[in-house]
């Protein structure tokens, strides 16, 4: 990607540990030191500690080594299996959404001729993100309530038969969660596609126009292939986001009714914040970490062809 700029005249040569050299580079180490210390304390130490905690039973009296007990519990916990299913549903659904809706809108905006209009359309679809995510979730919670927005709208257009308790009906609650934020355009995702579109050289596009390609063909044969890196990135980000976040079910339904909308992250949160079951919570955390790690490694493998960062 970026050509590496080295200060030293003889960059590739191997260094021997050499006191004078170290002294020469001392300011550089000092510059890096605060970050390293902070990462050690607030990321590496907790990560290792969490891994160790998952092999313990923790209560008010202290820690007790229990080996793989927490993991046994985890794998024999049918409810946790259900919550992983819910998680994969949400993640899968959102991958589907993120590869379509924001892309369509970005491509549409890109087709608007006036750059001023383009700018303002962009603003329109970005501005809703200034509302904090939890506020949006609370509004959607109201939308799904028995006397809430969705049922009001359905009654208004004469579809009163379809009204229901969207969050109290176990058959629809996951769909209700998935449809939160409909039409899923607002925010960063469409900006990334849009930035990708802007990078496509105008010569290619002009050539397409001269060839008389229709708008749709231009999209399918030029823009879509060239946006593949953005799409891959968004799929990765979406997957990781859903593996690690649980605010939506937490604020919307508390994972209910029953276990119908439970996800592993929320179960982990309850393990620490409600049940004081730190060992079990850490075990769930470790499993989630492994999943994220696998996703990331797959992604790195898929993008091997791209330039290495370093």
């Amino acid at each position, binding site marked *: 990607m970026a050509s590496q*700029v080295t*200060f030293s005249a003889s960059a590739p040569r191997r260094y021997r540990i050499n006191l004078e050299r170290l002294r020469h580079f001392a300011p550089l180490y000092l510059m*890096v030191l605060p970050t390293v210390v902070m990462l050690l304390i607030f990321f590496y130490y907790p990560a290792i500690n969490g891994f160790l905690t998952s092999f313990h039973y923790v209560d008010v009296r202290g820690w007790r080594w229990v080996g793989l007990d927490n993991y046994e519990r985890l794998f024999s916990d049918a409810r946790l299996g259900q919550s992983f299913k819910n998680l994969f549903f949400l993640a899968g659904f959102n991958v589907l959404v993120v590869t379509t809706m924001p892309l369509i809108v970005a491509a549409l905006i890109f087709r608007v001729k006036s750059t001023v209009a383009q700018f303002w359309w962009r603003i329109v679809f970005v*501005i809703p993100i200034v509302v904090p995510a939890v506020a949006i979730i609370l509004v959607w919670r*109201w939308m799904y309530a028995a006397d809430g927005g969705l049922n009001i709208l359905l009654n208004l257009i004469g579809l009163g038969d379809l009204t229901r308790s969207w969050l109290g009906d176990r058959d629809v609650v996951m769909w209700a969660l998935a449809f939160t934020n409909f039409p899923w355009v607002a925010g960063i995702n469409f900006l990334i596609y849009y930035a990708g579109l802007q990078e496509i050289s105008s010569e290619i596009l002009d050539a397409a126009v001269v060839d008389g390609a229709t708008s749709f063909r231009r999209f399918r044969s030029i823009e879509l292939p060239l946006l593949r890196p953005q799409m891959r990135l968004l799929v990765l980000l979406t997957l990781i986001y859903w593996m*690690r976040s649980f605010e939506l079910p937490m604020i919307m339904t508390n994972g209910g009714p029953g276990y119908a909308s439970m996800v592993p992250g929320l179960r982990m949160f309850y393990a620490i914040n409600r049940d004081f079951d730190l060992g079990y919570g850490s075990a769930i955390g470790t499993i989630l970490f492994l999943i994220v*790690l696998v996703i990331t490694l797959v992604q790195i493998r898929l993008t091997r062809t791209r330039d290495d960062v370093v």
Partner: protein
Amino acid sequence: MSRLNRLRREIPLQLVLLIFAVPTFFPVFVMLSISGKDFFQYGQQPLLPTLPFNFSNYEVAWASMSSTYFNNTVIIGTSVAVILIFASLTSFALARFSFPGRKVLFYFVLAVLAIPPTVILVPLFMLIVNMGLLNTRWAVILPYAASQSFAILVFYTFFSTLSKEIFESAQIDGAGFFQMYIHLGLPLARPIMSSIGVFLIWIQWNDYIWPSLVLSNPELQTVALKLVVFYLGRGIPEPGQGMAASVISSIPLVILFLVSMRTFIAGLTAGAVKG
């Protein structure tokens, strides 16, 4: 004339965009509409705006939410300042100079990106408890300030694209590493710094889970946390007050957005691509 024609030809396109925009803004509309309703107005017409607009909802909500603005300013201000200073220092050192251990340090810093914050929730919580920081602003500031990897990645990419000539001439002038950072790195990085800053502000403003674990003192709570506590935790629920609190929770970001529209968008794009 042709301009008018072009506009006319674009009408269907604009309409389609409008169809997407309406549901996108529906939650915001709902928030504003309900926030002006008193108990009985809500009972009669829960959706469409009603008159008179009942500002007392905002008074009640503000009484709860007011302290959160200060808390967010202190928490986010401190942690973003820390991140901008130390992340830029680190990435400047890593991107511009090769020195023993550089590669190891680089991977050490970036590997953190693979650790999702949720995963270290439990041990980080215990760490904060053991440090005696539960229920202090530090409990939020320190972990936030340590979340530098994304900023480092953006800074790194930026610094490594700079041409090496200017650095060579500075080196000939006899400038040390730190002087080069101050006099070359920082000024060049200023635009990207504000983009990163805006993105970090947005991320931290939105964070709910971590503060909810460590900030139980109502006087220290952050905007997102207090909003949920206020909305869901009241004995006598009043939808108007809840929505008013939601509006209040968005106002500072609306202002930030309006004064720095382009930076904001640049920051979000950069942030998403790297984060």
